[in-house]
């Protein structure tokens, strides 16, 4: 099982000091957090993508490429990549490039984005969110698997004899997760392709997650990718820890009370009861997290949200120390002991290469000037 963190990349005032970090500080803090994730033994760092203040990560592959250069093992991912407003051609190119630079340490999570005004900035309409996600991903899926693509759709200019470069590393496209909180259509999409499904699992009651995962598993089996319990499931989670649980509650409360998402609404106690948020000791986090398995089954990836709502970098790094040193080693052991042998681990580049029967160089070497097609013999 993989453990990691995902970040929204918000610039938020620290409610305890009134200080708001600059964009530059926040961007550097995100990098420091990613490096720390590797240092404390986590597997995954995933960044959000946003195109409006107060968020900074508008250019995920730039940031992930930089982190890739400064890490050795960390898997770089997204939470989420906007499959609605980004051009699927550019996603194919950018993430294939990142895949080469990071030697395969990359996967992606597709999401629609729920901020209405963002869509028209990119020439799109939020009311077509689902159809955009379906059509764009179908094109992206082909661009990584077919050297030469002829394509015509509703939301993008047609492609004739188009080759997306670079071709995926070793002939194996990055693994893809699809994230959605409450759209059954996206669970269906993930199931159809045999891709992973990620339930955000923060900010909302666990019942949403339970229902979506159950649907995804059922449809995954329906489309013949394996049994329902072999579907590839990821969950989010949100925690704040101190050795003494009272200290955790006292320290986190002002950040909770003023958080952009749920601040000035329910109490910390109500929200902890109604959603998977856990504020307490490392042991409480371990117990609660192990409990997730009881309503979604054995799953492959657990990401935690650690750095939002204005928490200072120093605090976040302390949280990562606790997560990496005290929580994740126990979770790794416990989850592994519970997982039946026929339930697969989360796909990695290495496992996908093995599944594909070995690495192939998929470089497209030449293009015929007249037909625009690559000669058969030159594609390998």
């Amino acid at each position, binding site marked *: 099982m993989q453990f990691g963190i995902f970040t929204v990349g918000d610039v938020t005032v620290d409610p305890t000091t009134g200080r708001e970090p600059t964009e530059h500080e926040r961007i550097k803090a995100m990098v420091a957090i990613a490096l720390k994730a590797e240092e404390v033994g986590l597997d995954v760092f995933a960044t959000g993508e946003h195109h409006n203040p107060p968020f900074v990560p508008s250019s995920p592959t730039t940031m992930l490429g930089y982190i890739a250069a400064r890490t050795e093992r960390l898997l770089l991912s997204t939470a989420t990549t906007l499959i609605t407003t980004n051009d699927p051609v550019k996603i194919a190119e950018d993430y294939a490039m990142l895949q080469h630079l990071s030697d395969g340490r990359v996967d992606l999570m597709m999401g629609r984005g729920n901020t209405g005004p963002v869509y028209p900035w990119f020439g799109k309409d939020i009311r077509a969110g689902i159809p955009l996600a379906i059509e764009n991903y179908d094109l992206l899926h082909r661009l990584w698997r077919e050297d030469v693509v002829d394509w015509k759709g509703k939301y993008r200019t047609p492609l004739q004899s188009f080759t997306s470069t670079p071709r995926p590393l070793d002939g194996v496209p990055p693994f893809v997760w699809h994230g959605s909180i409450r759209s*059954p259509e996206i669970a269906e999409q993930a199931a*159809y392709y045999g891709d992973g499904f990620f339930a955000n699992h923060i900010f909302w009651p666990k019942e949403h997650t339970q229902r979506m995962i159950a649907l995804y598993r059922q449809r995954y089996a329906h489309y013949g990718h394996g049994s329902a319990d072999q579907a590839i499931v990821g969950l989010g989670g949100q925690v704040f820890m101190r050795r003494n649980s009272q200290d955790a509650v006292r320290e986190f409360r002002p950040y909770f009370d003023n958080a952009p998402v749920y601040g000035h*609404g329910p109490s910390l106690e109500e929200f902890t009861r109604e959603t998977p948020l856990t504020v307490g000791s490392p042991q409480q986090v371990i117990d609660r997290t192990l409990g997730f398995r009881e309503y979604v089954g054995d799953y492959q990836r657990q990401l935690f949200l650690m750095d939002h709502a204005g928490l200072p970098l120093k605090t976040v790094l302390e949280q990562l120390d606790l997560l990496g040193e005290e929580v994740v080693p126990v979770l790794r052991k416990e989850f592994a002991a519970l997982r039946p042998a026929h339930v697969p681990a989360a796909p990695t580049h290495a496992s996908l290469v093995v599944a594909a029967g070995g690495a192939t160089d998929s470089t497209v070497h030449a293009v015929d000037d007249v037909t625009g097609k690559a000669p058969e013999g030159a594609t390998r």
Partner: protein
Amino acid sequence: MTRRTLAVVSAGLSQPSSTRLLADQLAAATRDELVRRGSEVELHVVDLREYAHDVVNNMLTGFAPAALREVIDTVTGADGLIAVTPIFSASYNGLFKSFFDVLDSESMVDRPVLIGATGGTARHSLALEHAVRPMFAYLRSVVVPTAVFAAPEDWSDGTADGALRARIRRAAGELADQIERRPPATGPADPFALTTDFLQMLGRGDGEAVS
């Protein structure tokens, strides 16, 4: 014997509340009418006051806390709704509107609804027609023609005696008519149900039935 559920929502804020009193009378009259016609009736009365914080939290977080979720499922899964609000500043009160704001906009389609209101003076009575009825029109509910407004004089033994009672009876009869025209409700819609399959979404063929 047909089994029917009737949800009653009162947005009265004081206790005791004349809004709740009107809601109870409308509920009893409707129940009696349905029973007289041979149905078995289950009444669910909701005082929104008890869920006021949850309603606001729902607006802020995007999800209903468990207790409110139960109420929403009851209201959206009932055969008929009686909705009663006090008139504040020439319209429904904020609590009444906020509750209907957090419902899924599709969840009350074709639902028989009887609307009622209370106010400090009979001059507020048309708020039912210019505020409450249009809100349910937006939700595409079926609001019965008779809306019931109760002013202070309606509760006393004055000249209006009997008029309110007759109006309640007429409205209850209309609501019972609408309920009886429909098959028994099957409970709230499942927001996580898959209603299409992938090939249909992709626009390739008709897809297949989803189990």
